[in-house]
């Protein structure tokens, strides 16, 4: 049962193309991972990394393309097929059963588990198996008592125990501390050097790639944009392949920011706990003036979500002050209405809409409690809501079968158009936007960016939190980088360099 005596396998994916309907997620990508090598797969969110490894592991059936294992054609139609070739995957999040011990987790994960388990024999076998590992793990305590690094090691041990000799690691260090990350990757590196294992690691952290990987492949928007030996490339070159180094497009209708433009949003010394409650978000000083777009760049999970929640009043800060137009601001409905503050959260269907309510009702969320003169109203009129929505649907070109359709029946781009229509009508002084174009098609993206630029030109201060650097470079007047819960770098757009920004995003400097 154990992986003793087995050696690493080489894997090659040739000409992988994956289309979902009209959308091409992956186009003609070839990756060669020789036996015993440590290969890094790089790319921004949505670049096609997950699609590629899912095709390789049999979760998806690629539209076209071929898998080679040890230079022989391999038909991999399911994860089970992948397993039979010795291919395995370690996910970003743990898949162990927390209440069971390490030993129990290993034994039950086997494909064939006897109806009655002879635990004494299993323990002896496991002990022999663990002898072959370059590190020790406590296998007799429940997994929930293990530290994150130990869990990640156990995930890797599990794959070896199941006889896998090629492993895909999906951002394996995203849940680890830097120390743990270094230890786990060091162990994996040792195993590849001992030719026990071949590794393909998805990552966007440059330090760990330069320290541990042999080769790399970069994807961008579903295409291969670079590959080679890590030793022959510096981080700047890899960042350029990942982000693209086309000239920064300035929308020609961008008006210059007036030198005396009034500050609209001021955030000073704000501190709040993050999701895990272990780290904190600290925004020392951020001012956004009327008529400028300030972009916040950063890799997902560095505190951007929490920052949005602080500004939207969903996460009360422990200390610090937020002011809008020099007035203390707590994000109540009354305050946001009086100061013309609007929010466009990421994933609009999940965060800005009630999916089962109708398109018309969703478009009325901001104004249902006002009468036609803008005074507070206690009675709502279905007719007025419908007329209001019909007008917005026409002006913002929202494609919907009917105003009475539930908003969840709309495509992602049209949900976002409906939300923009709701939030961008009337006077806007401060607009706070998060990942507005994530997962949308190109035409919707262009239109939504134009709407944001238009709001800016009409005098709104815009805070744009985005994981898409292209978007930030296209829209922002200034770019700040958020890393580990703090704003660590700031540059005006004129001197913005994707390389420098990318390095700050990756936690370098």
């Amino acid at each position, binding site marked *: 049962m154990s992986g003793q005596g087995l050696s690493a396998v080489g894997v090659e994916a040739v000409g992988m193309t994956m289309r979902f309907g009209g959308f091409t997620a992956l186009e003609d990508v070839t990756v060669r991972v020789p036996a015993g090598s440590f290969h890094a797969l790089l790319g921004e969110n949505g670049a096609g990394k997950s699609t590629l490894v899912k095709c390789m592991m049999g979760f998806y059936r690629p539209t076209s393309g071929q898998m080679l294992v040890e230079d022989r054609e391999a038909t991999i139609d399911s994860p089970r097929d992948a397993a039979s070739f010795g291919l395995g995957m370690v996910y970003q999040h743990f898949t162990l059963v927390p209440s069971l011990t390490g030993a129990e987790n290993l034994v039950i994960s086997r494909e064939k588990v006897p109806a009655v388990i002879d635990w004494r024999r299993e323990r002896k076998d496991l002990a022999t198996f663990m002898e072959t590992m370059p590190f020790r793990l406590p296998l007799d305590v429940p997994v929930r008592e293990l530290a994150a690094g130990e869990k990640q090691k156990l995930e890797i041990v599990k794959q070896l125990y199941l006889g896998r000799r090629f492993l895909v690691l999906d951002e394996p260090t995203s849940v680890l501390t830097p120390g743990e990350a270094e230890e786990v990757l060091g162990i994996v590196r040792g195993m590849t050097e001992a030719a026990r294992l071949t590794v393909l690691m998805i990552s966007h952290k440059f330090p760990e790639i330069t320290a541990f990987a042999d080769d790399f492949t970069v994807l961008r928007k579903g295409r291969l944009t670079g590959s080679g030996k890590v030793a022959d490339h510096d981080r700047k070159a890899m960042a350029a392949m990942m982000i693209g180094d086309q000239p920064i497009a300035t929308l020609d209708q961008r008006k210059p920011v007036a030198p005396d433009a009034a500050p609209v949003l001021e955030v000073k010394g704000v501190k709040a706990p993050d999701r895990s409650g272990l780290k904190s978000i600290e925004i020392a000083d951020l001012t956004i003036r009327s008529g400028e777009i300030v972009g916040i760049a950063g890799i997902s999970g560095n505190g951007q979500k929490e920052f949005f929640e602080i500004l*939207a*009043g*969903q996460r009360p800060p422990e200390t610090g002050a937020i002011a809008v137009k020099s007035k203390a601001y707590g*994000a*109540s*409905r*009354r*305050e*946001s*209405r009086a100061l013309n503050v609007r*929010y466009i*959260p990421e994933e609009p269907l*999940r*965060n*800005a*809409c*009630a*999916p*089962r*309510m109708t398109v018309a*009702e969703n478009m*009325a*969320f*901001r104004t*249902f*409690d006002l009468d036609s003169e803008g005074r507070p*109203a*206690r*009675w*709502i009129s279905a007719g007025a809501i419908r007329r209001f929505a019909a007008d917005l*649907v*026409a002006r913002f070109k*929202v*494609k*919907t*079968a*009917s105003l*009475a*359709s*539930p908003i969840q*029946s709309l495509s992602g781009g049209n949900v976002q158009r409906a939300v923009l229509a709701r939030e961008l009508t009337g006077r806007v002084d401060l607009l706070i936007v998060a990942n507005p174009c994530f997962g949308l098609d190109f035409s919707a993206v262009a239109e939504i960016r134009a709407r944001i630029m238009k709001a800016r030109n009409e005098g709104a201060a815009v805070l744009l939190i985005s994981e898409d650097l292209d978007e930030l470079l296209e829209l922002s007047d200034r770019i700040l980088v958020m890393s580990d819960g703090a704003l660590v770098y700031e540059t005006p757009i004129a001197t913005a360099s994707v390389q420098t920004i990318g390095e700050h995003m990756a936690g370098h400097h």
Partner: protein
Amino acid sequence: MSERASPSAGAVEWLARRAEAFVLPLAALIVGLLAFSVFLLFLGKSPLQLFELMWRGGFGSWFSVQNTLSRAAPLLLSALCVALPARLGLVVIGGEGAIVLGGVAAAAAGYALSGAPAFVGIVAMGLASMAAGALWIGAVGALRHYRAVNETISSLLMAYIAIALMNHFVEGPLRDPASLNKPSTHPIDPAFAIGDIPGMDVHWGLVVGIVACVISSILIEKTSWGFAARIAGGNVRAAQVQGLAVGPLIVGFCALAGGFAGLAGMIEVAAVQGNANASIAAGYGYTGILVAFLARHNPLAIIPVALLLGGIDASGGLLQRRMGLPDATVQVLQGMIFLVILFSETFYGRFKAFNPDLWQRRR
């Protein structure tokens, strides 16, 4: 945006969107009755006789209709105690607790105000019962929103506490020494008793229940509070980003729901029992859960559903006598219908006929 070809197509679409909420519960009800028929066949009884007796016992004569209407009255109010929080996404199943506390509060107020004008006494009893129920279910909402306590569990457990409290008051501080066999509170002033609707053997509680359903419907469909509650119930994150005060909405709707359930307790005391005793914990709070789910938490739909369930309830005695079925038969039937209703939840949105958005492939 595709324009509809004719007004009739628009009407068909309108009908289709609303038909689902009617057809699916009806189908679930029928499946529940069929499942119960199988159960009867195993007992060697005739399902046809059962349905015939149910009809006769619930709706077959003026007498049985009046019986049904009387039983429907508390169901209307106790169903609102489930339906209103459900519009905010809360599953509250402890209406029974608000009913019994409402009953005790009403009996205490009715005894304390003996001799006052009838109007004052009745209004005071109503307000006392609503306050007690509002406090109880409002607390459930507050625990849920501010302390993240699961409202389903807490409301159920609080119902047990409420029943224990009622027993304490009825057997202790509020006990009428004259009530020997069945501990009860002092009887309320007979002037405060709620009488029958003229020409019927049905008390005014039925009208109170129907008015409460209509008010709830207007609140949810026509006011900005109701709209805000629907947003919060549809997606609490979206409501928060819109700056809506989700906490006060949840507590407020729960308190109103509890107030209606408390009113049901007051009506039990003022129209039926004349004082508060263990009989007011008659299970209306639990049947109300079934009524609300069958009505898909639509306050207006609660009215016909409560009549239907009241009818089934009213036929219980007849079933017992004619078919030799045990007393709990009606509860078994209700349980089966409830299970099928819960299963039917998975079918919403699955049928093309009810979903005009699937009628034409859009690009």
